[in-house]
């Protein structure tokens, strides 16, 4: 999440059969089920890689309830899904957030992202889990007034251009890999660099911790067991912070820029503005088509709700299969859907590249 995404695509807007929001396990498997029906997919995900929660939250943790796979890690499941859908050549738009959806005069949808990508498709599939991953914002009063202040000043949750932080008084908070990586990378060009964390210990890789300790010993980095209690300055122009130590003592600290690194959390995000009916941040669907109350917009996986819903990966796979059947009739209104099995259909096997 540190580098700006590459230019998303050539040929904007893109026209395709299905635009899928979310490249988690359910969005990926939807590519397979749609692909068997010859529907082409573009996927959008705010993360920089496929897998959603599986790879962001628990890549190394074992999952035991995937049918046929007695034990599989989140990363391994995603890797296998990527292999399974490869024959269908899905197009990914990583590091992008779907921001708006509008209906066109011809009945299709136009989906736009925050990176300027536009996708036109007759079918939209929302497989967004609990929403989009966004940086955790520390509960410091008024912190939002210092965000988006411009390059190298105020509050930032990612470093895009290191050079913009040259000569600044930088304050970093957090104890994970991102916090320590940026301490190490920004220390050489900062005027001052201070790290605060709630304990004298870090979740980060040991070699990063060692490097940070060396920078501290050399006087290039200051480290305090402390937390940020208040931000000072005018909106858009941070001048300093109040820090509180473990013993509750408080002191003032000069800072031009504050970089909190506490990982990501999930917020529903712009989907709430798409005009789709929501119930407690979930999309009600019917259980024959997994379509929202807006025709042509489907919702599968954790983002949907219906009587008996279970938030399980295996349920999402089932939902993807039924959704694909319904989506076919929207994308190919004049064609007859032929239901076939991958074990017996030479036609399907050809698509899968196994025959």
């Amino acid at each position, binding site marked *: 999440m540190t580098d700006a995404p590459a230019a998303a695509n050539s040929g904007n807007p893109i026209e395709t059969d299905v635009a899928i929001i979310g490249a988690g396990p359910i969005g990926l498997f939807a590519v397979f089920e749609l692909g068997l029906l010859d529907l082409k997919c573009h996927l959008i995900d705010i993360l920089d890689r496929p897998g959603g929660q599986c790879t962001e939250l*628990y890549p190394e943790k074992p999952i035991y309830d995937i049918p046929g796979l007695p034990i599989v890690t989140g990363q391994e499941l995603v890797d296998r899904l990527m292999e399974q859908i490869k024959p269908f050549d899905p197009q990914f738009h990583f590091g992008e957030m779907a921001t708006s959806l509008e209906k066109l005069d011809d009945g299709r949808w136009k989906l736009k992202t925050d990176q300027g990508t536009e996708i036109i498709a007759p079918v939209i599939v929302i497989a967004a889990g609990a929403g989009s991953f966004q940086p955790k*914002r520390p*509960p410091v009063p008024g912190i939002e007034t210092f965000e988006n202040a411009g390059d190298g000043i105020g509050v930032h949750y990612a470093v895009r251009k290191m050079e913009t932080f040259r000569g600044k008084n930088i304050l970093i908070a957090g104890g*994970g890999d991102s916090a320590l990586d940026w301490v190490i990378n920004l220390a050489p060009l900062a005027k001052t660099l201070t790290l605060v964390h709630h*304990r004298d210990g870090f*979740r980060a890789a040991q070699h990063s911790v060692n490097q940070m300790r060396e920078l501290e010993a050399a006087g290039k980095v200051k480290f305090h067991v402390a937390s940020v209690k208040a931000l000072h300055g005018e909106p858009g122009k941070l001048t300093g912070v109040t820090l509180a130590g473990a013993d509750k003592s408080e002191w003032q600290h000069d800072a031009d820029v504050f970089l909190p690194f*506490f990982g990501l*959390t999930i917020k529903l995000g712009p989907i709430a503005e798409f005009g789709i009916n929501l119930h407690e941040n979930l999309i009600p669907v019917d259980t024959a088509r997994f379509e929202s109350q807006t025709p042509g917009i489907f919702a599968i996986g954790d983002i949907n709700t219906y009587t008996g819903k279970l938030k399980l990966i295996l349920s999402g796979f089932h939902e993807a299969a039924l959704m694909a059947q319904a989506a076919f009739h929207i994308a190919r209104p004049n064609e007859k859907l032929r239901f076939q099995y991958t074990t017996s259909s030479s036609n399907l096997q050809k698509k899968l590249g196994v025959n």
Partner: protein
Amino acid sequence: MKIIGTDREGNTKEVEGRDGWSVMEILRDNGFDIAAECGGACACATCHVYVTDGWYDKLPAPSDAEIDMLDMALAVEPGSSRLSCQIICSDETDGIKVTVAPE
């Protein structure tokens, strides 16, 4: 066995725990706004609570994995912060007091 939970607005309510269930599950099922994004796998730090009134020291100490994961929580208070998915209800936790941490 009781859990005395306080939400982010300061409202306190007493809810019934279940032996072997996590405090996170009990709070979530009783309407507390607790994200618990990873579903209780000690992998996200979004079930962060403050354990108060002397209860912190009565609990089994947090695992290394939980201590590490707390590095991703906001507004951690040493000696009080825990991940509620890692606190298991039992007779020993009867009456535990927890406050949902800011998100």
